[in-house]
């Protein structure tokens, strides 16, 4: 149990510390790279919550996929020019106030609500349980995802390529 607490606090510290870099670094490239430890910290949190399959997906899709996408786009658009440009807009103060208010609200809610303790135990083998679910009750979700992905692919290619000839 102590081990779990230590792991939680270490992971939370990693997640939040690199999250601060993502949110505030004046160097876009540093922001994007700090996204990796943030996502890995969240991966650790998933593992603590017994969701190992989701954790694997998180690394594969987020850290190995979306981050690469973001790094590519920064390299394609910014190059090194971002360092000389102001990165924050005029509403920093308002943004900070709103974010702090939202965080305070959420924390207050989380602390005050008497959360129900559910019955039952988690499935010990999550990939199997998820597979049973996807091909059973959630089949439509499963097939629907493939349609969403198809539309994404078509749309994104259309947008990104549209003016390639110009």
């Amino acid at each position, binding site marked *: 149990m102590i081990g779990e607490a230590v792991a939680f606090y270490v992971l939370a510290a990693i997640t939040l510390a690199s999250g601060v870099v993502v949110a505030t670094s004046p160097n876009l490239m540093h922001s994007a790279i700090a996204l990796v430890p943030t996502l890995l910290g969240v991966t650790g949190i998933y593992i603590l919550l017994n969701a190992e399959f989701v954790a694997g997906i998180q690394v594969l899709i987020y850290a190995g996929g979306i981050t690469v996408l973001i790094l590519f786009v920064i390299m394609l658009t910014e190059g090194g020019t971002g360092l000389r440009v102001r990165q924050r807009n005029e509403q920093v103060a308002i943004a900070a106030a709103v974010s702090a208010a939202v965080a305070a609200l959420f924390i207050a809610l*989380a602390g005050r609500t008497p959360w129900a303790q559910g019955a039952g135990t988690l499935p010990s083998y999550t990939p199997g349980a998820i597979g049973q679910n996807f091909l059973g009750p959630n089949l439509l979700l499963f097939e629907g995802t493939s349609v969403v992905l198809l539309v994404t692919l078509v749309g994104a290619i259309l947008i990104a390529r549209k003016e390639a000839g110009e």
Partner: protein
Amino acid sequence: MITLTHYLVLSALLFALGLYAALSRRNAVAMLMGIELMLNAANINLVAFNKYAAPGAIQGQIFALIVITLAACEAAVGLALILAAYRRFETTYVDDLNLMKW
């Protein structure tokens, strides 16, 4: 002893960081990174509720999977839009992108 509340607090803080990034950044890519942080915060909640509030079901984890999928779609389309805007206006800073039509 780590309880559900711990995870919810962590998620609230991560969400606030993401919100701050999305609101205060000028660069569209950085705003998108803020949105990714918020989605991750939501995912922590989903998986935590799955463990503590409804351990008999696996729905929370499935929701988290769907959120990750949609995050990937959002990033792909969003970044494609940013690239298209960059090609047109030569900038990715949203306050310079204030014309709806050229």
